[in-house]
């Protein structure tokens, strides 16, 4: 299989702490890949290493088949990168930003630029420093897409945007990126956004890529099972794949990765009054998966409220 992005043991230390450790990321060509993780999980550092903005302490990166160390400007021109916060020159007008960016690319879709600016009513003479966050994101995306890149790397592109603007941004992004063969690596905190567009997800926890699979597979793999008992709650036997366990009175909520017949049989043997499997969406699956066994749910009980 051909990969748009392939890394081998990519590692970065800040002081003694490994913020990214042995990252083996493979983004197939034509795939929309959502890179997920809590704050500080190492997503941004990983993306910056992929773009050559942070030097790895160890490991290799290949972009569109070329080693990052010796990547040619031509290949770099086929890759778009939207850094977190959409950094642009605030003193420039939109027109000046376009005039500055255009000469760097032999291929430039001026029609697309015109259409996007027209659609979002962004006047060329408006200064970037005076744009709202959403408008700046639109300009940033337009500048990234105008050279018709084969690979887009987007670092939390909807961060800080309100719900409506985020929705519009995402709609335009979905519309604009739907081109055959275009590969996208997207990191985001907004799981619903990722769920809408990503074919595949990766989950980073403490600098390590713990999950790398199709989005649907991840959602199917993480299951919540609710068991209720009429009497005292019995001791749970050792259950394979159990990653979360919370108790609310006579009810117990268990989270499994790879829940199957074996676990079901073990739970039924405890004689519960109710046993129910709950499907999770990507956000719920992500929360349950990344919560970890040490991070117990914070429950406001009567004592705490009083």
């Amino acid at each position, binding site marked *: 299989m051909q990969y748009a992005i392939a890394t081998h043991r990519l590692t970065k230390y800040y002081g003694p702490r490994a913020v990214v450790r042995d990252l083996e990321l493979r983004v197939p060509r034509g795939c929309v890949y959502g890179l997920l993780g809590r704050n500080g999980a190492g997503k941004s550092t990983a993306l910056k290493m992929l773009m050559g*903005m942070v030097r790895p302490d160890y490991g290799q990166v290949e972009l569109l088949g070329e080693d990052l160390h010796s990547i040619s400007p031509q290949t770099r021109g086929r890759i778009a*990168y939207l850094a977190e916060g959409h950094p642009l*020159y605030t003193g*420039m007008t939109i027109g000046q930003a376009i005039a500055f960016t255009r000469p760097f690319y032999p291929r430039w879709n001026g029609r697309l630029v015109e259409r996007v600016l027209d659609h979002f009513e962004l006047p060329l003479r408006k200064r970037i420093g005076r744009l709202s966050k959403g408008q700046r994101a639109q300009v940033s995306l337009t500048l990234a897409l105008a050279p018709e890149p084969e690979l887009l790397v987007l670092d939390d592109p909807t961060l800080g945007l309100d719900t409506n603007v985020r929705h519009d941004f995402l709609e335009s992004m979905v519309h604009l990126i739907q081109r055959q063969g275009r590969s996208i690596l997207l990191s985001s905190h907004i799981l619903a956004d990722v769920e809408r567009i990503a074919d595949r997800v990766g989950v980073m926890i403490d600098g390590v890529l713990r999950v790398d699979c199709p989005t649907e597979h991840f959602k199917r793999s993480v299951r919540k099972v609710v068991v209720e008992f009429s009497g005292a709650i019995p001791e749970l036997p050792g259950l394979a794949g159990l990653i979360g366990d919370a108790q609310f009175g006579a009810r117990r909520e268990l989270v499994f990765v790879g829940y199957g017949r074996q676990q079901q049989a073990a739970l039924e043997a405890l004689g519960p009054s109710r046993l129910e499997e709950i499907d999770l969406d990507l956000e719920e699956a992500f929360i349950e998966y990344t919560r970890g066994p040490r991070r117990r749910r914070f429950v406001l009980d009567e004592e705490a409220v009083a």
Partner: protein
Amino acid sequence: MTTATATTSTSATTSAMARALVIKELRENWAIAVGATLLYVWMVQSLCQPGFHGIPFLFIVSTGQRGVPFVDYDFSIPFAFTTGLLALVLGFRQSISETVQGTYLFLLHRPWSRSAIVLTKLAVGVGILLVCSAWPIVAYGAWAATPGHVPAPFEWSMTGIAWRQLAVMPLMYLGAFLSALRPARWLGTRLVPLAASGTAMWLFYLCPSRWGFEWMFLVVVDALFAVTICYMVRTRDYS
């Protein structure tokens, strides 16, 4: 034939990229250039006054009479101060503004080598510095060369001191640029490149002037700073 066409196309693209970057740098730094020019205008205009009694410029004390143009300190001290200030402001401004806005991430992702990008920035900075600071020497020299203005003979070779002052200022500019670019934990270590450039400027004045040794020294040190800046741009983390 195809290769020739491709080469022409590449060089055309390169010149277009360079032009775009030069325009951007000029647009961002024109206010600094205008500010420096106004200071120089005021300085030269003060020097050319018939009843000149020295420039009330910070630590410059009026001597009460006009000195020999370029040889005495009437010109050289305010000139060195203004040019040094311009070099510092330009160097820090060009680098810090990219860091503060986070635009190094945008700029360095352009499909052009990082060395080419930063060398273009430096060329514009040095260009602004030299163009803004050269004309006061020429203007004051032309005034001094006009008979009746100065009660002493004037030779254009007397401007040599000022030209030497100007020639050494790109070092200060490069030191400031590198100080702003290079990551450091605290201000003291951040300013190490600036201190190094100051030392090199001092050494330049100590160099023997035979066989152009001083100029060779200056060119080598300037080149060392430029290479270090290119290396730093390529290798530092933009986190």
